[in-house]
């Protein structure tokens, strides 16, 4: 049930500098909970006080924005890759 999570630079203070870590969980919510269990505090950076994804963070499950999928309920079977990326402007 191993899921790889790509950690953005600004959250690597929680992961001792690691750019990629391994977590477990059936859904994105579970995966983030496990991430926070391993690296305490990181969950609150990604989720707001109501436990929803913060509006300026983009999370991708296997390259798809989870807002196109099932948000935090998106399934994360073994081998899934999760990327957390701050939103940026365009042009």
């Amino acid at each position, binding site marked *: 049930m191993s899921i790889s999570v*790509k950690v*953005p*630079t*600004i959250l690597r203070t929680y992961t001792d500098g690691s*750019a990629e870590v391994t977590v477990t969980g059936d859904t994105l919510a579970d995966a983030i909970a496990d991430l926070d269990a391993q690296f305490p505090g990181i969950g609150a*950076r*990604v989720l*707001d006080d109501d436990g929803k994804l*913060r*509006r*300026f*963070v*983009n999370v*991708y499950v296997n390259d798809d*924005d989870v*807002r*196109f999928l099932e948000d935090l309920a998106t399934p994360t079977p073994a081998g899934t890759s999760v*990327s957390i*990326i*701050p*939103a*940026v*402007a*365009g*042009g």
Partner: protein
Amino acid sequence: MTAQTATSPALGAAYALKCRECAAEYPLDASYACLECFGPLEVAYEPTVVTREQIEAGPWSMWRYESLLPVVPGAGSRPGLQPGLTKLVKADNLAAALGARSVWVKDDSGNPTHSFKDRVVAVALENARRLGYDTIACASTGNLANAVAAAAARAGLKSVVFVPSNLEAGKIVTTAVYKGTLVAIEGNYDDVNRLCSEIAANRHWGFVNVNLRPYYAEGSKTVGFEIAEQLGWRLPDAYVSPVASGSLLTKVDKAFRELTKLGLVDEHEYQVFGAQATGCSPVSRAFQDGLDIIRPVKPDTIAKSLAIGNPADGPYAIDAVRRTNGAIADVSDEEVVEGIELLARTEGIFAETAGGVVVATYRKLLKEGLIDPGAEVVLLNTGDGLKTLDAVAPTSQPTFTISPSYDDFENNYTGENA
């Protein structure tokens, strides 16, 4: 207040980067997201005083407003494209065609690489130089690509530009000609942007719209400053801005508020209107549904310069529109083409698709009674129609083709416009 980094020279009145969401402050470095909440960082300034006379005596470019921008003073004398002071055109023919009283077009196709992006890049470039980068980079839907490649060439920096591979040919060539590195990505703009935020984390490059974004975004304020100065130091009743990331719309609003606060213009209630193409209208959807959260979309429109499905500043654009009792609407690709052609035949201005979106949206807002036909309105044209020829090519062809014979001409010419 957070101190500036010890190595960087004073950045005008700017003293910190500040989170728009939680107000946490950071030094004036190359960072763009709040460590606390991922909110976007914005430049914070000390109160400053500047007079109309000081501005009017400044350079004949956007740098006349440098005291209101995050740049080391003297930007106008350093190598760059010196953009800005584009024409504000009184569009009486367009107004008559639409039954409106007073319409202006702020025509930013007059910038060095023919779009408003030269302004934002100019501020980003100044900060790339300040922070010691030898390479500037960007993710782009085309106009920014042109601006970055050209500005880097003038400034003697390297450039690496990332674009979706399906971009208009006109925007590929007008980037590649400056001979920086141009990377075409098999994906849409949001895919390109995402890749760039990963690359930005691993390269010591100044990504103008990623790690330099707080500075970059401030450049858009100069559109608003110029509109006010060109109207004779006053604000219009309304403006209609295209919405891609939502940054331009928000920054023009910010510019109007700053000018008011500085006493450079009289207080005047104005309305902010946003324009999107229906094929990529996440901000318009959210506005009309009364939401604060933008649900991303997969873009499908000829208005590629606005094809950002996941617009980072969308919530702030909606805030500005709601605060001023404006509206955001969207128009079909057919209406975009009609908008381009309407502006061209009434005012002799050939806008790119984003300009067509603005004109068509203004027409729609008038029709739906969401904007007062008696209001003095400024329409923002952000780019040049020569970059998006494909959009109008099918409907803009020779009136007739004949042999080089006088009789043939006389037999075909009706004297009517197309």
